[in-house]
Every structure is written in C-alpha cells, then in structure tokens.
C-alpha cells in the first residue's frame, strides 16, 4: 500500500507543477462539447437527445488526450526502468500512475460534466446517474488508454496510433454509459448498465496492469 501511495503522491506532485499540461484535456473537453451544437444545429428538443452522446464521446477523447503520454516522461528520463527494477511490483506502479492521473485530469472532467449537461438541457434528475456512470467507466477507460500508452512507449511518435488501438476497445463502455444516462433521462431503471460498468471496471483493474506491465517490459528493452 505504501509504495502505491508514494507513487501516486509523486505523480500528483509533478502534475501540480505542470498544471497547464493537466488543464489541456479539460479545455479540450469543453471546446469539443461546444463545437458539437455548432456542427449539428439541433433544435431545443434535439439538443437534449444528442447531449448524452456528445458528452460521452468528448469525455472519451479527452481521456485519450490526457493519458496517452502516461509513461513517456518516465521512459525518457529513466525513472521507469528504475521502478521496474525496484522491489515494487510493476503492476502496482502502473496502478499508482493511473490513479494519480485519474485524480488530476479525469476527476475534474467528471466534475465539469454536470455544468455542461445542463447546457445541453439535460434534466437535473439525470445528472447523478451520469455522474455514477462516469465514475464507473473512467477507471476502465484509463486502464485501456494506459495500455495503449504502454504498447507505444518505445516509439517516437507513438501517441498518434494510441487512439486507433484503444478506441475500438472502449465501445462497450460507451454503450453502457450512454444507455445508463439515457435511461435516467427517460425515468427508466438504470441499475443494469451501471452494474455492467462496475463489472468491466473490476475486470480491467484486475487484469489490465498485467498486460500493461508486460507491454512496458517489451517497450523498454
């Protein structure tokens, strides 16, 4: 537990010192959700219907932006190899880094969603569900993007293909998350998709770090 917290604190401290970098995905999120109405020109009724999808896709893309370089600086300055050689299991290190970056970039994004949802005329009654759905979906999302980051860690311009690698894998998250939100919008029971999101999160957090650690070991060679 202690090494996990040490790593989380280290990464949070570094991110705080580079706050402008941490703010980028957040600003990206806001800009993209602003561009959609411009492009779609929805009527006042339509805007509520598209709100769910727009917010979820924007959140997905912003997470991609936030996490695709998760291992890059550690690989470049050699601290990743030191962590690999240390008595701390690489899976714990990976979870620590994912947790730190989730706290710094994803959590603020989730906090911002209710405001943007209101701008899309979504009723307040739907907001808690969207909040829970995002809280359950973003850990899995973070694990998947971290996997993409790990697979491309040795590459000079690896960031470019992380999206291609990872986004198809996130389809189930998008499906369950948007459906849960839509059910809430129409006063239908939301437990089903939320439980499924929780199950996926458990699966991802349990198995993801293994795959990510394996990918890092190959990439660092």
């Amino acid at each position, binding site marked *: 537990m202690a090494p996990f917290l*040490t790593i989380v604190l280290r990464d949070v401290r570094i991110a705080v010192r580079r706050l402008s970098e941490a703010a980028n995905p957040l600003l990206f999120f806001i800009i993209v959700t602003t561009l959609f109405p411009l492009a779609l020109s929805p009527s006042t009724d339509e805007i509520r219907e598209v709100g769910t999808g727009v917010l979820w896709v924007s959140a997905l893309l912003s997470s991609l932006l936030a996490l695709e370089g998760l291992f890059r*600086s550690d690989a470049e300055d*050699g601290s990743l*190899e*030191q962590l690999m050689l*240390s008595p*701390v299991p690489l899976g714990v290190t990976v979870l620590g880094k994912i947790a730190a970056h989730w706290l710094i970039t994803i959590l603020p994004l989730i906090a911002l969603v209710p405001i943007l949802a209101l701008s899309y005329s979504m009723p307040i009654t739907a907001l808690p569900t969207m909040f829970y759905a995002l809280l359950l979906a973003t850990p899995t999302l973070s694990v998947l993007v971290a996997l993409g980051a790990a697979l491309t860690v040795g590459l000079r311009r690896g960031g470019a293909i992380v999206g291609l690698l990872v986004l198809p894998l996130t389809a189930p998250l998008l499906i369950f998350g948007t459906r849960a939100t839509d059910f809430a919008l129409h006063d239908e029971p939301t437990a089903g998709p939320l439980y499924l999101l929780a199950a996926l999160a458990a699966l991802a957090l349990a198995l993801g770090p293994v795959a990510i650690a394996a990918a890092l070991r190959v990439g660092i060679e």
Partner: protein
Amino acid sequence: MELRARELSVFRGERCLFEGLDFELRPQQLGLVVGANGSGKTTLLRVLAGLAAATSGRVTWRGSAPDSLPLEHRGEIAYRGHLDGLKRDLTVLENLRFHASIWGNATDFAAILQELALGAVANVRVRHLSAGQQRRTSLATLKLCAARLWILDEPTTNLDSDGRGRIIGWIRAHLAAGGTAVIATHQPDELKQSGTLLVEL
C-alpha cells in the same frame, strides 16, 4: 552471492554484439567492461540487470535470472545507466526521498548530499542543475539502497575530477564491504585493482 553468465549471446536483428560470454563474479570482485562505442557494453549491462533479454545463454544472480528475481531480492541489484532516473520537476531532495521510500532505506540525506557537493542545491529542481550535478544526484541514490551488486554504465561521465574521485572511492568501499560491481568504462585503469575481471567486447 554470485553473478554468473553462461554462454551469453546477444544479437540485435542480424548483428552479433557478443556471443559465448562466460564469467563469474564473486563478492568483492569487480568486473570491468571495455570496448569501443557501439560494441555492446550498454546492452550487456542491461542484460545483466534484467532490463533486456539475451538471445541465448543465461545470467543468474544468486541462482535466479535477474528479470525474475523474487521481490525481496530485487533490492540487491542497483543499475545506473546513461539515463539519470530522476524526475526533472522534483527537487534533488524529493528525488532522493522518493528513491529511498521505494528501495527501502531511509538514511541521512544531508550527509550524502554533502559528500557529493550537492548540499547547496538540495532544494533545486533537477531541471535547473548542470549535467554534472544531475549525474551526481543520480549516483547519490546508490547509497540509499542496500544493493549488493552495482551495475554502472560509464558512471564517471560528466563528472569533474573531484566527483570522479568520490565515486571511485564509493565503488572501492562497496567492494571492500563485500559487494560486487560490473562497470562499463573507457578508463579501466582508474578502477582496476587486484582480482578485477576484464571483459573486452
């Protein structure tokens, strides 16, 4: 507590870096790896540390391969390559504290920093240090773990004569205390002592 290499060969693609390497290092013994640039010194050291895989052959430290050491033995190997392993946005002291908490040996940071003339920059972020200071900070971490095997890749680059002297002193002290070391260097004479194994690539 031995480092053993048996029939070690490394090919990168079709290029043979070295093959059939066979040696054994006992406690208090120093192994020096020499060779021209690009001859495979760094690769050999990374294979010994467990960061890279050999094409064939085996490396063992205390009987297990270095990349599959049980967690409690991980702290026994300290590897310092060309990269410093320091976070540029953290201060010297913060880097040392992090390293100590990961590798499990909190000691007197002030004394270590003093020895390497880093006392004045203890609270400066690594990105503002000179190359020599960064190198010294990276080597300072050697004293923060209880490693028995030191694998160092050209440790004295970027160091002035003072710093070089310090590090050489540390290495000799480490060996005298029963440790083992494998060091890649362009100047084997400054480190050579009796019983040193010379590996020429």
